[in-house]
């Protein structure tokens, strides 16, 4: 068990190193000169050279990489080229906003998807199961930003129940916070719930075909009892995998949704930095997102160990 844990930890650390290399190599080595990108093509060579020197871009690439990783580890990824604003605090501020959005959406998506997915699986040969399944298929096809636009046009523009966008800090104005959280959360959650429900459906359907469920029925458990007592835990393995992937998708989906609802989250920071050509900020935000995704994968791996005893001893 401890060995399996350590193995997973090693995988996480190597993945993080590889990911940092990919991000760094991509952003720093490929374009040639980030200083030139930041200042634009019209900048004088002298100005570019000065910026390069200020930011240490004239040093050897490995030194720059180690410097950058060191900055990340001490939670200080440096300052922006033009505005000279510190990147770390910006990310910290924006991350809070995005986390609210992502966590709220994930919880809501789960609350919707669990019962719906189960229902779809148990009733997969009946009309209600088929209708739900078809609906979820449509839900999967709707991009979150489209759902956001539709929700805005109905609840903000037509009905005027909630503002169409913006953000306030929960401590300042709890009601306003919830009002502004509602639509973006809903647009992310509805789509994710559709995806999740479909995965739950297929995981449960797979489990329903398993021999041990037939054994459970032969013991005298009724179909739903058998599913609850013996099926759900086994169905959880693939569902947890998808949950991890979805959390990652949500993080990225939030980038677009923040734009739709004008929310000052990590996504907005990323897009603004892209627009301003602040490669250092882009690089830092991308790295934060990728780290989040990899850590989520790690947690999913640990959950496997909790759910499935077979994986603990590495028998399979």
């Amino acid at each position: 068990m401890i060995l399996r844990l350590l193995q997973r930890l090693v995988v996480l650390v190597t993945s993080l190193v590889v990911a940092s290399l990919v991000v760094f190599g991509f952003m720093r080595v490929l374009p040639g000169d980030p200083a030139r990108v930041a200042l634009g093509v019209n900048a004088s060579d002298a100005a570019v050279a000065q910026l390069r020197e200020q930011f240490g871009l004239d040093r050897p690439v490995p030194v720059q990489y180690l410097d950058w990783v060191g900055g990340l580890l001490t939670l200080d990824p440096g300052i922006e080229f033009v505005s000279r604003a510190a990147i770390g605090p910006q990310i910290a501020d924006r991350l809070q906003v995005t986390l609210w959005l992502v966590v709220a959406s994930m919880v809501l998506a789960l609350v919707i998807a669990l019962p719906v997915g189960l229902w779809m699986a148990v009733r997969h040969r009946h009309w209600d199961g088929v209708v739900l399944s078809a609906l979820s298929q449509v839900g999967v096809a709707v991009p979150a930003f489209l759902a956001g636009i539709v929700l805005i046009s109905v609840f903000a523009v037509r009905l005027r129940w909630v503002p169409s966008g913006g953000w306030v800090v929960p401590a300042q104005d709890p009601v306003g916070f919830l009002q502004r959280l509602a639509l973006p959360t809903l647009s992310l959650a509805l789509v994710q719930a559709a995806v999740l429900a479909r995965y739950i459906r297929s995981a449960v359907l797979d489990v329903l075909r398993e021999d041990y469920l037939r054994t459970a029925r032969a013991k005298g458990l009724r179909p739903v009892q058998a599913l609850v007592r013996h099926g759900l835990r086994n169905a959880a393995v693939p569902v947890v995998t998808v949950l991890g992937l979805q959390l990652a998708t949500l993080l990225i989906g939030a980038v677009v949704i923040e734009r739709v609802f004008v929310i000052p989250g990590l996504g907005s920071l990323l897009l603004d930095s892209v627009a301003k050509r602040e490669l250092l900020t882009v690089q830092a935000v991308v790295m934060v997102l990728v780290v989040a995704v990899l850590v989520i994968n790690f947690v999913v791996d640990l959950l496997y160990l909790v759910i499935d005893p077979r994986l603990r001893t590495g028998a399979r």
Partner: protein
Amino acid sequence: MTTPGRVVATDGPAGPGGPVGAGRTVLRVDGLSVGTRQTPLLSDVSFSVDRGERVGLIGESGSGKSLTALAVMGLLPEGLGASGDVRLSARTPAARNLLGVGEREMARVRGDGMSMVFQEPMTALNPTMRVGDQVAEVMLLHRTQPSRSAARRRVVELLGQVDLPDPAHLARSYPHELSGGQRQRVVLAIALANDPALLICDEPTTALDVTVQATVLDLVVRGVEERDSAMLFITHDLGVVATVCERVLVMYGGRIVEAGPVQEVFADPRHRYTQGLVAASDLAGADGRRGRAQLPTIPGTVPPAGRFPSGCVFRTRCTHATQACASQPPWTPRGKHPAGAAAYGHACVHPAGGDDD
């Protein structure tokens, strides 16, 4: 049709309504048919099993032997329907046809009045649940043990009875930590936990090695003997049936083509299919070894389920088939049997045995 009490042999296959509950008959199946809307898979299957009796159900792939078991258990896969009459005399007198009973009531019978051992021990147990809990569950579910702790004590006893080493420790392990033979013993312990009136075994040793098979077969037989349970034992292996059972039903193409005491059916088969099967399976021959390249064979191959010919299901592979075989051959009783005419006879127009063969 018959007087209550011991079922007496009647002319023709025993019709529906033969009373169960009185006497020794535990399971009575009459005119059982199973199929999808278009395809019949099982036709007019009738048999009965007495208390303490071990009846074998033998057949090749597609013969419908497993479907028979699943139909009795009420566990047919979705999309298949069953008709006919299935009665079980367990703790509750079986006044009702199990095929017409609701799921809730059926669930009360399963695992209690009748239970089942399946073919694949590797997948029959829940991989995420300790085996002891899986055994205990069936007792707690039917309330045959007053408490969780009593059930746990009984689990250790049961696991000991199926010859598992260190049962107290083993109860705490997960299925993947056990070998195939050990898992099958756990499945057997689950099936026997509530002392069922009927135990159905569906190819319980097919996936096991010969030495493991021998011990598991022994445990199965001892388990039903100790409980005086009725057993329906399904297999494709003639040797296994002959070893374990007293009486055998031979199935082919979804029908019972021959039935009777093991000794008579295998030593002196009447139906041409049984005859071919016995000849083809007995590689050693009566005197230990047969010459090479002289194995008798049945020509052709077993058709896929639902694709058997009308009339006699074997006629497309039978060298004795004539025009008469195109209509369903009647059941010919072969001798008196306490379990009725369906228990001893065959459905062949040109039977083997006696003088002509």
